[in-house]
């Protein structure tokens, strides 16, 4: 699984990095930035799904 954030959709709700701090961090304006290369280790897949499901803008994208 990979996680990415569409910067055009992100409005800085902060729900992604609060739900999955291992995968996403906040930038200076409070917007989510994917850590590293965005590859989600199996044990963090549930957290990645939480981060995506919590985003009111549907800006967090999960792919295989």
């Amino acid at each position: 699984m990979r996680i990415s954030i569409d910067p055009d959709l992100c409005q800085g709700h902060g729900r992604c990095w609060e739900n999955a701090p291992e995968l996403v961090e906040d930038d200076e304006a409070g917007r989510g930035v994917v850590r590293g290369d965005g590859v989600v280790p199996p044990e963090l897949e549930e957290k990645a799904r939480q981060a995506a499901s919590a985003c009111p803008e549907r800006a967090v994208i999960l792919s295989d």
Partner: protein
Amino acid sequence: MSYAGATTDDELRRKLAYERSAFPREYYARLRARGPIDDTEDPEEPVLVRRADVEHALRSWQEYSSDFAGIMGSEEPIIPLNVDPPLHARYRKLLDPYFAPRKMVALQPAVQQHTNDLIDAFIDRGSCDFSTEMAVPLPCSTFLSLFGLPLDELDALVRWKDIMIRPEHLVPDREAALELQATTAREIYARFQAEIEHRRAHPRDDLITYLVQAEVEGQKLTDSELRRICFLMLSAGLDTVTISLECIFAFLVHHDDARRMLVEEPGSEVNLIEELLRWETPVQTVSRRAACPIKVDGHVIPEGQRVRLALASANVDPEGLPEADQVDVRRGDLRSFAFGGGPHRCLGSNLARMELRTVVRTWHDRIPEYGLAPGAELVWNSSTLRGVDHLPLVWTPGSTR
């Protein structure tokens, strides 16, 4: 007969407003069953009630514009609330970092201190009015900290806020209430102007100084822009947190399992607050203006029409949110529009979350066992900023920390 008719309409509106505020989930379920848009409570500003429509409208600023004036007595559009992109993005680029979570971490100790000071004042009494002794003063003291103003201005600030948000509660006559609101808005603008000039001459570490010194694309903000940003902070940052605290504690006094979870599992407040913001949706609606004729499922909103987006309905609409009608801190789909969405996502959402988490955590650490005062009834305020003006709580003195 028009006079009698008007009276009946007024009575109907009052009844509907109370139901919306006191029984929001039942109220909006009824509206959603009737259609996508409802004008029974306010024909001049109909309301979109379906989750999919609200979500679309929040994002589609080209159709649903925020460019209008008149919010809380302000004669001019306030910033950034009443500005559309692309100009809106310039202001947000300046303001977002100041209200980003990292900044809130730095502000949290002051909010923690204010919370403890407020609790200290009543903890040995074994009772308090949570609304007037915590929910109202806490965000006001935070505002004063942000703006670098002395805490002894708190009473004056509360008065300003009350006039701005619900002038009709202070002056029953509608015309007179609006006049008082407009006069007060001018008074507030004058006060901000004085503070702006003072910070320009004597810079210090506060929000006004930050704004005075800031540049947007190489240009300093004008005094008019600065005043309208300050007015936004005052109109949006106080009552919203007050009513959110009231909604959360009104829920907790009726849900002992949730209260116990907060006491026994520090940290559980984070998800519970998110879920209660969805479930209670204290800020029930946000306003927009149709920038063009908009079709909504067969209905047409004419160009120029003011329209409200019912966040409170979208958040509990089972069409699009599984088990929307249950409070579940472990729900799979967490998406909530309690802080709106799209470009106008609440600027202060991180500040609000920090304040709510600080109060809920500190309260349950210090006063774990409490309840509604015997015989007390909660009276909801009929406002789209739904809260209870009084929330009498009791506990056993000595059972506290």
